[in-house]
């Protein structure tokens, strides 16, 4: 099965015109599988962190949404222990007019705006509602512990 023209075009554009704070590189042996890093948005508990994700384009893409999962541990009410993400555009609100870059931007925006009323990680959401300050502190701590940028990214 050859790679659809759209995927080739999207990949070319991700490389030639990258989104600031987002980096997506396809695997050499499987061009439908991307290694992604997303910078934590500024003025969020995730600021300063670099989060690794995996992104996979299913056979039916763009008619179905890409599969996206966090690989880096993160303390967030809409992201569970396995890294699965609760985000409407990845599920019911997917549209074939969306792209890899727009989806990753949505994921980055989700880090900036956690939504504990539509939780995936129930314990985190509960804590977020009861004691937001403490929850944010934990999120910051986890960012420091697990999402440290690699040395070469600093220079």
């Amino acid at each position: 099965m050859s790679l659809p023209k759209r995927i080739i075009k999207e990949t070319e554009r991700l490389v030639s015109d990258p989104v600031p704070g987002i980096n997506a590189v396809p695997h050499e042996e499987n061009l439908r599988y991307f290694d992604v890093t997303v910078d934590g948005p500024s003025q969020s508990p995730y600021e300063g962190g670099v989060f690794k994700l995996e992104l996979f384009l299913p056979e039916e893409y763009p008619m179905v949404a890409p599969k996206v999962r966090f690989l880096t541990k993160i303390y967030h009410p809409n992201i569970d222990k396995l890294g699965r993400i609760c985000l409407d555009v990845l599920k019911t609100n997917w549209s074939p007019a969306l792209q890899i870059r727009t989806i990753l931007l949505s994921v980055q925006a989700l880090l900036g705006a956690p939504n504990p009323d539509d939780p995936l990680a129930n314990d985190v959401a509960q804590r977020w509602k009861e004691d937001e300050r403490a929850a944010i502190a934990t999120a910051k701590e986890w960012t420091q512990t697990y999402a440290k940028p690699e040395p070469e990214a600093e220079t």
Partner: protein
Amino acid sequence: MDEQQHNSASEQAVSERDPDLRALKYVMLDDNLICPICRCALVDPCYTKCGHTFCTLCLFKALSQTPKCPVDRSSLSDADVLPPPKILSNMVNELLVHCSNEDKGCKRTCQRSLLRHHLLESCEYTPVPCPSATCDQFVERRYIDSEKPARCLHELIACRACDVKIPEIEIATHELVCSQRTLKCPDCAVVFTMADIVSHTSECAMARVPCNANNIGCKWVGIRAKLKNHESECTFIALAPVIEKQEDRIARLELENKSLRIQPSLTTTSGMVDSDAFHIFTEHERFRSELEKVSEQLGELEIRHGVLIMNQNVRLKEEVQSMRNAMHGIRHQMHFLLMEHRNWALQNLNSSMITSAAASLSSQTASSSNNAQFSGETSSIGRGTRRENESFRQDVRL
């Protein structure tokens, strides 16, 4: 095996006939003509009631998954998909594309709607059936010579150098790169094979080479065998390491100088002011480069505008000229008609004069009143033509 090969060749030929419009290279592509779903130039576009445009195939595929507009998510059924405005179909059909045989060597660009015809009828690189009736393979059109009798271009011919059998149409390209092909060195007349070309040219003792210090001024050029001899007494070679070191140092200093120049001489003031100044300085640089970019674009725009106006002017001038020509023709016709009319009037007048003369002979008493009547007639005819003439001239002026 042969059959399989033939199948793939014929498949290729079929695909040439119906080019994949999404795989084409476009000369220029407006973002507005890109389908939001396949991200390629619109193919067979359609239009939704909410005002968005897609390839028909892409949209129906999307609607079969979710009956919503992929762009604004308003609900959409198959009945809400409308044919595109004529102008849109025309715009996508007239997009300029490179021929899909570009990688084989075709340099042609044409309107997208004409590409199929080009591939089918004229492209020199389209595979067509081999002219031989017995051969079922394909050759590119450029290999077929319609002047010569049809013959198969796939017959195996032995390469003159390596004896491997190669189909006729590929033999020329093979012989160029055949590793067994022998070449004669132009310098030392040694004969070697293609495979050894690199090793020989870098070793040939009779090849003319420059001195290794030619970049710092040594003008010596001679055969490789004498190079060692020369270098042992060349003064430039002795200096080379020193000069190299100096140049390296200069480059390093220049780099340092540059970075120092970027930071203006505010190092003596406090760090706060320093960083502010630096910030302002970089902003200034950024604005300057942006200004340059904008003025460049402005210039380009002006030129384009000028060309546009010129084009319009030329068209209008042409129109005025053709109008003038038409007018000229009409004036000639009018003139001709007037002359006719006048001739006719004069004839009329003459004949009536003759009859009146006869009448005056018969009754001399009525002659004076009759004459007055005729002169009145002629003058009224003259006035009429003049008036017509004038009104026509006014028309022309308008």
